[in-house]
């Protein structure tokens, strides 16, 4: 089980986490006619939100114990990984209906228009990139026994 500890008070708003997340979910694009192809960064699954009092809050999926998104999906496209505890999107089953994103109370699930695909934090399948790159310790990863 992986846990990500979020401490908004420590966040400096540098957005290194967003960048790290984007690249952790980048896809290699095929060479297309007339173009070069290359690396296409993904939509960041963590977003630093700025509050009314100018505080920074990194927002990402809480992997809720009783997750609304899982209950919302009618196609069995959301499954919790037993290894990491993260709720993962099965893109083959997903119909992009958007109900999971609508049901999430926190806005931590979103449609990546360019692919298109429904995306959310998957705890990087066990090695949270955001925590690795967070310079202040506002995001810290921890591995817990099951």
């Amino acid at each position: 089980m992986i846990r990500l500890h979020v401490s908004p008070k420590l966040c400096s708003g540098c957005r290194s986490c967003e960048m790290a997340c984007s690249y952790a979910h980048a896809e290699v694009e095929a060479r297309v006619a007339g173009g070069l192809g290359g690396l296409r960064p993904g939509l960041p699954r963590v977003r630093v939100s700025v509050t009314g009092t100018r505080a920074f809050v990194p927002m990402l999926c809480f992997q809720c114990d009783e997750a609304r998104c899982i209950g919302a999906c009618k196609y069995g496209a959301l499954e919790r990984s037993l290894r990491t505890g993260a709720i993962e999107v099965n893109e083959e089953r997903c119909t992009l209906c958007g109900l999971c994103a609508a049901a999430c109370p926190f806005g931590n699930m979103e449609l990546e228009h360019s692919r298109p695909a429904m995306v959310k934090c998957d705890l990087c399948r066990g090695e949270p990139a955001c925590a690795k790159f967070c310079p202040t310790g506002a995001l810290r990863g921890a591995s817990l026994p099951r």
Partner: protein
Amino acid sequence: MIELRLDGELVLASEGERLLDVARRVGRRIPTLCDHPAVEPEGACRLCVVEVRDRAEGPGRVVPSCLERVQPGLDVRTVTQEVKLVRQTVVRLLLRRAPESAALRSLAEEVGGKSSEAVREPTEPAEINWGKSSGAVWASEENAGGAGCVLCGICTRLCAAAGYDAISIQGRGAEARVSGPGGEPPEACTGCGVCARACPTGHILLAESGGVRRIWGRRFEMIRCGGCGEATLPRELAELESRRLGVTLVELTHCPTCKRRSSAEKFGELPARRTREGLSESGPMKGVAR
């Protein structure tokens, strides 16, 4: 584990696995039109056929690989003269129904038997679902619709799986088409758009503008996000799902960005002591969602 033979190679499969999934797992390309991972296979298009023999020497049977399950000792061939012929015939017939469909055209080019090597060495098709059907063809807001229906039944099965059951295949033979009961616009349709996005030929028109979505001859008012005004869900869909999920309509139709903003306000104000130590062990939102 079950041992079988695939194009002469020994492969291992698990109990109950479909031949289609086994073949793809070991790198074979099997064209499909009516298969969708989120719903039960129906064997409607017969594009996915393979030839099987119970013994290496026995007579061959041509079966849809999306329906056929593995059996010990089965001898499966994915490229034979028979298989090629069936696929070509299928595509030719389907092209009559959906001549405009880009997906079908590229498929026709591929199985179309330009040379006998065409099937053996397939080129990358542009838009067909080679093992990743959902979302492979995105019927977008600009989807013109009307490319032609091949009666794959993906739309009707997905709609039924969602519990709406608004559309079905009506009529037979050349007259067959998908619509609401009695050929009328489907009353039970919620405007979710899942059918249009999943349709492999791009036949289903989904148009959205000025806060109105049109599909299957019906018009759906889009509810706008209470924060920014972006159109989120059709009212009918949102009201139905709001009751099912026990989530207020307002919350359900706020966009992710606005929801993130308002939750950040809450989390930003959490007491410093708790936040410094990290939010509680099992996540701050333990049990929040009912």
